[in-house]
């Protein structure tokens, strides 16, 4: 009972308070400035009226985000295996990975456009650039922080390098990998939206949520702009939820840090 209270009632209460404050602020503003904060009702109406556009934009953005995310998972895992081999490999590659991570997306965007053209390709590539770093760093960390005693044990039994890697290091790196995956899942939709603003293309109805936001703001459709924000939030939430569920599912019998509640 108290658990239900904690997980349902209290968040609902917070929501109610925020809504009340929102309405309060709206009507507190002088009439000519109320456009700054449309009422929740107005935002919902905009959401309904613009649903076809927003849905299509969300779909386009998700495609770019998913593609970039998948690419990041694949490449980072492979690279992490390489990086785990020796401190020298890590020392020689990390600075350049850092450099990639430290270059802001809006700067990378025009470069991407030159390379692969505006549109989904660029969005995927830029999403890759932002989701890649946390994945590779976490996975590498996991691969190199395997229990020393177990590594010694594998040596004792004369396990080959490959056996040590795939029977010991990879399984024990999984929780780290999923931590990276969760960070990347948060970054990917945001990255895709920013990428869409800077390197997206509306050709053939291919525009994403970033594009939609630019259009609405230039047309001064503020409730629709808020509705776009809500859609972006929802997209990020779905992305994260999927990853959390996948992680739970694949780790539940696997790792002590993911024990089932019924235990």
């Amino acid at each position: 009972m108290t658990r239900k209270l904690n997980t349902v009632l209290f968040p609902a209460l917070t929501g109610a308070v925020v809504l009340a404050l929102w309405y309060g602020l709206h009507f507190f503003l002088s009439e000519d400035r109320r456009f700054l904060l449309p009422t929740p009702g107005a935002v919902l109406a905009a959401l309904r009226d613009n649903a076809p556009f927003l849905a299509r934009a969300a779909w386009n953005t998700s495609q770019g985000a998913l593609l970039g995310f998948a690419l990041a998972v694949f490449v980072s895992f492979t690279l992490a295996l390489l990086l785990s081999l020796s401190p020298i490999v890590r020392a020689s590659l990390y600075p350049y990975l850092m450099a990639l991570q430290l270059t802001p997306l809006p700067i990378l965007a025009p470069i991407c456009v030159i390379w692969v053209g505006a549109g989904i390709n660029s969005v995927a590539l830029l999403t890759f650039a932002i989701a890649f770093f946390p994945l590779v760093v976490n996975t590498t960390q996991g691969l190199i922080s395997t229990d020393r005693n177990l590594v010694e044990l594998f040596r004792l039994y004369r396990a080959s390098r490959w056996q040590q890697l795939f029977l010991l290091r990879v399984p024990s790196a999984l929780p780290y990998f999923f931590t990276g995956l969760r960070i990347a899942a948060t970054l990917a939709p945001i990255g895709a939206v920013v990428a869409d603003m800077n390197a997206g293309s509306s050709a053939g109805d291919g525009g994403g949520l970033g594009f939609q936001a630019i259009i609405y703001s230039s047309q001064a459709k503020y409730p629709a702009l808020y509705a776009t924000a809500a859609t972006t939030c929802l997209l990020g939430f779905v992305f994260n939820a999927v990853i959390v569920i996948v992680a739970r599912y694949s780790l539940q019998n696997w790792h002590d840090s993911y024990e089932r509640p019924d235990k």
Partner: protein
Amino acid sequence: MSAVVKIEDIHKIYESGEVPVHAVRGVSLEIHQQEFVALMGASGSGKSTLMNLLGCLDRPTRGSYLLDGVDISRLDKNELADIRNKKLGFVFQGFNLLARTTAVENVELPCLYGKQRMSAKAMRERAMHCLEIVGLSNRADHMPNQLSGGQQQRVAIARALVNEPQLLLADEPTGNLDSKTSIEVMGVFQKLNDQGITIVMVTHELDVAHYCKRYLILRDGVVVRDEATLDRSIANVELAKLKQAETAAKLLGAGSTAA
């Protein structure tokens, strides 16, 4: 009978630090088949170093070591690893089981590697047999986190047995266990010893050492005492006593609540 272990004036000097550490300073020792030796001594006295030498995990700086008649100083790295896999079994203080891997798969681990691979069926049979020896055949499919500490250590012992070693080396195998569970583990060791396996174990606890047949005390890298255990404890007897005491306590407890 020829000795399983015969070391003569063995020394180990660690050169890795700023000053060399002379951890073992001239130990000579013979251990025969079916002996059960406790290695005791203060922290830093060189017990683990000596165990590593016995286990061919490390080479002595000086001195000779015949393992089952084979002079190990003449062997190269591969031959050393081979003899280690064939003749020796290792048990550690921290169990060192693979997480999210069943007990029986953990026991199979040593057979997975090396040159001569067995068939999966033969491997499983052998692993199950070893689990039976330590009394855990009914837990074969459990993960380590579903087993108690004592059960985990017994799985680790089964793993050490899977290649049918002559000599079992255990560095503080009861170090992480409570006293009753320690007795259970010592019971397993005594049973194995009765079946002919030679055992050397490091322990800090005098009452654990009492289950062995012979005890050595090391001080500053030298053996200062080497004697047979008088009044040796027998695990089955001690466990029965404990059980009796528990039952008595329960009866007493029941009596007092009824009164």
